[in-house]
């Protein structure tokens, strides 16, 4: 049985970037990896494929093709890349699309055939409907990771995801493996995320700094692991990969009520603002000397 994990988090927070780098790092460590993008945008695996997108599972449904070889495309270092795909923006039901795609992959022996050591689901945004909760239901992923920054809305989304995990936990659904703090610029941001996980009976597995290397590699159509393997940032992703492999944690998080969450956040946000101002003033003082 492969290890199956699902990566969730607010839209644009860095799920696909983190997932792809995690896949690449795991692959470098010698594991056979399958990455499944669960997002109609179809962009989860592009940096594993030199910036090129691949036909999606739902494209084959759309074309009524039964050629399952079209579903899996090899990426960096032989990583199996799959995109669930979905409808055009504004039509149809993307949630049902995720369900159909995952069912198709599971019932047609696609996953068995490739027999990867680890499968990573990169799932879009908030868990807006049942379809996007599919990967955390019984029998799919065993661990969920959530990506967040120190932005209130990102943490808010994590808190909501925790509620989703709780809902499915009674029926053998996936539990929390840990929180990935992304785009970190200061230790205070780390403290805030750490405090959130303390308060919700969960834990941070890795902090990933905000880094221009990531952006540069993305523009070249590659992951940081591929494009800048010797960078500090690549080492961070390799660290994450090693931890994920060893991580046996399955937290049953205790999310905040919405009101409590905003009360908790307002204290931290004030601190962060003050901190930002001090940093800015320091830079200005420094530059005035030139």
């Amino acid at each position, binding site marked *: 049985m492969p290890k199956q994990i699902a990566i969730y988090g607010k839209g644009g927070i860095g799920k696909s970037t983190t997932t792809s780098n995690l896949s690449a790092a795991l692959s470098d460590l010698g594991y056979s990896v399958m990455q499944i993008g669960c997002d109609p945008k179809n962009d989860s695996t592009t940096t594993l494929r030199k910036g090129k997108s691949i036909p999606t599972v*739902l494209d084959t*449904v*759309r074309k*009524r093709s039964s050629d399952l070889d079209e579903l899996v495309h090899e990426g960096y270092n032989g990583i199996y890349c799959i995109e669930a795909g*979905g409808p055009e923006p504004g*039509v149809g*039901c993307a949630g*049902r*699309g995720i369900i159909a795609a995952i069912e198709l992959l599971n019932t047609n022996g696609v996953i068995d055939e490739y027999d990867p050591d680890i499968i990573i689901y990169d799932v879009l945004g908030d868990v807006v409907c049942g379809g996007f909760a599919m990967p955390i239901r019984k029998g799919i992923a065993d661990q969920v990771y959530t990506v967040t920054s120190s932005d209130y809305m990102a943490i808010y989304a994590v808190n909501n995801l925790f509620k989703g995990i709780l809902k499915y936990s009674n029926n053998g659904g996936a539990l929390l493996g840990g929180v990935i703090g992304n785009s970190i610029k200061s230790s205070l941001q780390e403290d805030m995320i750490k405090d959130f996980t303390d308060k919700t009976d969960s834990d941070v597995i890795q902090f990933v700094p905000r880094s221009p290397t990531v952006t540069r590699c993305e523009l070249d159509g590659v992951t940081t692991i591929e494009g800048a393997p010797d960078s500090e940032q690549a080492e961070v992703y390799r660290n994450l990969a090693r931890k994920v492999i060893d991580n046996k944690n399955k937290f049953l998080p205790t999310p905040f009520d919405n009101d409590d969450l905003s009360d908790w956040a307002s204290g931290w946000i004030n601190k962060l603002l003050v901190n930002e101002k001090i940093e800015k003033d320091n830079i200005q003082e420094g530059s005035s000397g030139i």
Partner: protein
Amino acid sequence: MTCKKALENKSGILTNVENFERDSVEAPRYSCALAGVYGTTLGIRGGIPILHSGAGCGVGQLFGTLYAGGESAGGNEGGTSTPCSCLVEEHVILGGEEKLRNLIESTIEIANDDLFVVTSGCVPSLIGDDVDQVVDEFRDKAAVIHVNAPGFKANSLEGYNLFWDAIIDQLLPDDAGDIEEKTVNIFGIVPYNHVYWKGDLLTIKTLLESIGIKANIIFTQKNGLDHINRIPSAEYNIVVNPWLGVRAVEKLKEKYGTPFIKFPNVPIGAKQTAEFLRKVGEKLSVPSQTVEEFINQKEDWNYRLMEYPGDAIILVRPNSFYAVAAESSYAIGFTKFLANELGYLPDIIQITDNPPVEVRNEILDEIKNNLDTVVEPDVVFEADTYKIRKNLEDRPFLFLFSSSIESPTSIEDYNALHIPISYPIYNKSVLVKHYAGYDGGLTLVEDIVSSFVGPL
């Protein structure tokens, strides 16, 4: 589990009018909103339903609506020939608009019909297909409307209301044009769901004709679209139901200023029919002499006819208790007829069409205040067949007027003779039979007496 516990005493009558709430219903005596629109459309000659739904929705209604309505097939446009987008998973995920567009186009091309009723079921409503926009593309090519009728939104009876909302909002012109005097439109009788709809509508038409009023009954009439287009020019609208068609006549009043006359029920038998004719005659300024002459002439023969079975009734089943389980309008009509014209005793009246809370007291009052009898019936709002049956246990009634669901076991379960008068009726072919008007009341007497005389 008898209903009595849940009933409260409301000025002498036991009822649950205030507290009827439900989250699950066993074998309800209605289907879903889509079914109501479907049946209503098939009642219009030259109307063709275009179902935007899964394939099962249409086929299901062949059994759930058409056969249930007195074993009636759907004609050229219904049943298995119904145009349907037959949505499958692919359309759920990617949207079903394109398939619908093709379906409307080909239906307009090959069907010999005038009115195209695109009916959205659960799937397009859940995934948010922009059906209005697709339908808009065809509005200049044919008379086409869109009725958004997901099954989860409402029952089949409300589907009738949704149908009229769409006709009035999307098809009828803004301006009424010339008003034609002494003309009326009839609302409140639902094709198929009111099993005797064909005969009842035609009877109302003939009755009104007899006092010089032209009734546009829309359904059953050749060239149905012409009849729909004539709706704005009526002098009055008439609705014969406490809640079905009421929204339509209110809308028409708002849109064209057409006044309406509201009756709680389809008139059954001489007394109700006379009352109906008098009120319509008065509103439409028919000389009362004309009305009274017609009523006298009808009553003369009606009551002579009533004397024929009189002996059988008096000797075998005089002053019997009876139970009714039927849709609002017919429950009211039958209950009044049986008490006021046959001298029968109302035991329990169950209203099965789940009318909105706002009209339940109206229905209750109508029954309470118009019975010529010392016995006050329990009036129960109940849609669940299991509970309807439970409510019938341990009661004195000898006749049960309800759907064919109770037919096979009425004697065994309640020791009562059964007369099928309400949806669903699977055990009778219903064509011209009806209970409206003079003949209708007499037909009911025939049915009742036939159930206990003989066998040789």
